[in-house]
């Protein structure tokens, strides 16, 4: 038996189901993820400077890392900010072809940056098992590379979804949030480049 009751109703039936930017909970989840990974980077950078206080010469007994692969890669990543930003602006319009274009450009940038990152590893002038300096440098770049790869795979996957018949509005929102993560990858790259390439020369 159903009881009929009289209760005022807050009617939410007219609310949207696809939202973009900070209103979307995926945006918040991504923010928390960036806080977590950002803390890891911050702690590794702090460890880098802490280990530095334990020796007189820095880098200890080896040359600083070769500059140009890292610098060029950093510049390319900064440039890749623009397609990521453009895609983020296109996503709320629902224009599928523009979104596909933007994601494709991001994917291409990602490939070039990953290749350059490979060259960076070969030109660090120290092994991860040579000393503590080598260990922390490899770990810093290694962690960032993991993010670069993960973000690239996510971008590829989102691009693939745009070609699926199951593409829908919520995925446009995900594509918007993906750009936020791309910015994170770019910013952390610049920070790490400064620590690894810059401080060994400037400080």
């Amino acid at each position, binding site marked *: 038996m159903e009881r009929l*009751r*009289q*209760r005022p109703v807050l009617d939410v039936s007219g609310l949207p189901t696809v939202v973009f930017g900070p209103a979307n909970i995926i945006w918040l*989840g991504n923010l928390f993820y960036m806080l977590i990974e950002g803390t890891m980077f911050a702690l590794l950078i702090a460890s880098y400077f*802490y280990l530095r206080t334990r020796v007189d010469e820095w880098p200890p007994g080896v040359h600083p890392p070769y500059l140009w692969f890292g610098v060029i890669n950093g510049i390319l990543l900064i440039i890749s900010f623009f397609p990521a930003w453009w895609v983020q602006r296109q996503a709320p319009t629902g224009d599928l072809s523009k979104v596909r274009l933007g994601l494709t450009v991001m994917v291409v940038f990602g490939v070039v940056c990953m290749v350059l990152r490979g060259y960076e590893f070969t030109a660090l002038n120290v092994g991860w*098992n040579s000393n503590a300096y080598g260990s922390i440098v490899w770990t810093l770049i290694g962690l960032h590379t993991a993010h670069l790869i993960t973000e690239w795979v996510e971008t590829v996957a989102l691009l693939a979804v745009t070609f699926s018949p199951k593409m829908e509005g919520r995925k446009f929102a995900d594509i918007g949030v993906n750009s936020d993560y791309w910015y994170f990858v770019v910013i952390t790259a610049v920070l790490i480049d400064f620590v690894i390439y810059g401080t060994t020369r400037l400080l």
Partner: protein
Amino acid sequence: MAVSEPIAVAPVGAAERLEQTWRQPPGFWGWFKNTHHTAIGVRFMVTSFIFLILGGILAALMRFQLSRPENNLMGPDFYNQTFSMHGSTMIFLFAVPMMFQGFGVYVVPLMCGARNIAFPRLNAFSFYIYVGGGLLLWIGYLLNTGVDTGWFSYVTLSGPQFSPGKRVDFWAQMITFTEVSALGVAICIATTILRHRAPGMTLNRMPILLWEKLTISMAVIFAMPAVMVVSSMLLMDRTVGTHFFNPAEGGDVLLYQHLFWFFGHPEVYIIFLPGTAIVSTTVAVFARRHIFGYVPIVVSVVATGFLGFSVWVHHMFATGIPQISESFFTAASLMIVVPTAVQFYCWVTTIWRGKLQMKLPMLWIYGFFFVFLIGGLSGVMLASVPVDWQVHDTFFVVAHFHYVLIGGALFPMFAGLYFWIPKMMGRMMDDMLGKVHFWLFFVGFNLTFFTMHFLGLHGMPRRVYTYLPEMHWGTLNALSTSGVALMSLGVIVFIVNFFQSRASGELAGDNPWAAGSLDWATPSPPPSYNFLEPPTVNGREALWEALPNQPIVGGLRDDVREVLITHSLDAEPEYKEEDPGPSIWPFITSIVVGIVFVESIFTPWAIAWGAAPVGAALIAWMWPKGSRPLRRRVEEKWSV
């Protein structure tokens, strides 16, 4: 948003349709597809309780070995594994999974008035990955590969030179499993609290437990990465030849301690603050009034969360660091007492100005007051550097942290279990058995741990598998061991009570405690959709301050798993999400990730070849599935 004039609601068949829409699949595989927070929350609580028992058995073994000087129940190797497993199990496999993950996952969405937790599949994944970590550690122990370097495994003892073999590797990777689990749950809980609150539940009206869980989620987010970093550095030193902690190659042993304790101190607040939230919740209910000092308590909880990150060096006072730093950390460690003192004063005022009904949960809360306070005060002693120089690494410190952890977490935990088990299973626990449990445990606990203060003051260091008769520590140790029987008996009584009550306990009804929060606004146990009529809120105690015609939320579809997302500050309705429903992908992903984690301590190449299956599982998880995307595309409403 405008509220309509009274209209007839509860249309015919709404409950049945909601049940149909929200039901979790039955059967064996259905169990692994469940993504509802009540199921996952119960799983966290049951699993962590099992680890509590296992950790307790280890403690009993330790106490038996120490009950006499030069006892030969076990040799140093087995004892060292046992105490290391005891600490690791209690901290990583019991305390956080129960206090934060178990209670958080179960209670938070209900207290928000939501149908499910945010990111339900991440929540489910977090449970499975936690189980993986527990299995890794314990299978190791049962194969004589248990960690034997303490629950914090200082270098260089835990490094490749002095601890060859896989024991420490298992421990370090268990940390990866459990840390990923805690982080996943933190994201879910923080998002639920910020965006899934019932309309009308502004921040100013949020129950203290939600403030605490939000604070703790942020503490987890900032603290867990530190232990991830340090345990990974240790693993790399041990498996691929890095030199983070090798002094001979520029590494540093104190780097380990700084990174570990930067996590380790917030960790103990991650365990303790949930206890205080249970206290604040139940004190209000059983004093029959609003909590006194809502704003000071909220500020105290948040402040403790922050300040917890500023005291870590007090674990390192004996390392010879400069006095000026030690003084700073003494000051910070004393300062952090203040917010907890504020909470104590607010609690006593609530009770003083209320009418106390000493129901079973409240008995345990009083136990908390008596026990935790001793631990807090011995903490003041430890904060004082010269005193710490004497009692650090002795049984005095062991007494201290057991008083704050058992007093501050276990006593509130039992209070919370007696309080919320009626909601979870629909039946009340037996009162008399509950009282027997309390007294056995309270007396046994004090017998075991109060004596340890004296042992420490009289020179007995920690982590010793035996001691010489000439030390005169035998009597106190024997006395300490005698409490084990009482505590164990108490826990057995609790377990008996649980199973008996489950079968034939008094029916609980919706709200046996006449409490004020939204978790009591639904049947016990809650249906799969939590609330037939999603509530709105008019005050800090939603049910106590509900208007006679308090509006309900209407317009959420009952043929689709629609949930309402509200604004983080004022809980105004913003948009509608669709809950993804049951899914096997969290479970499959946890298996794949678990295999990669375990393999990687045997060969680092596992990360390389494991990346592809992990990536595939995650992509399968996130790929739009079934007819839902097509249906949504037709019906979706974009915001401008």
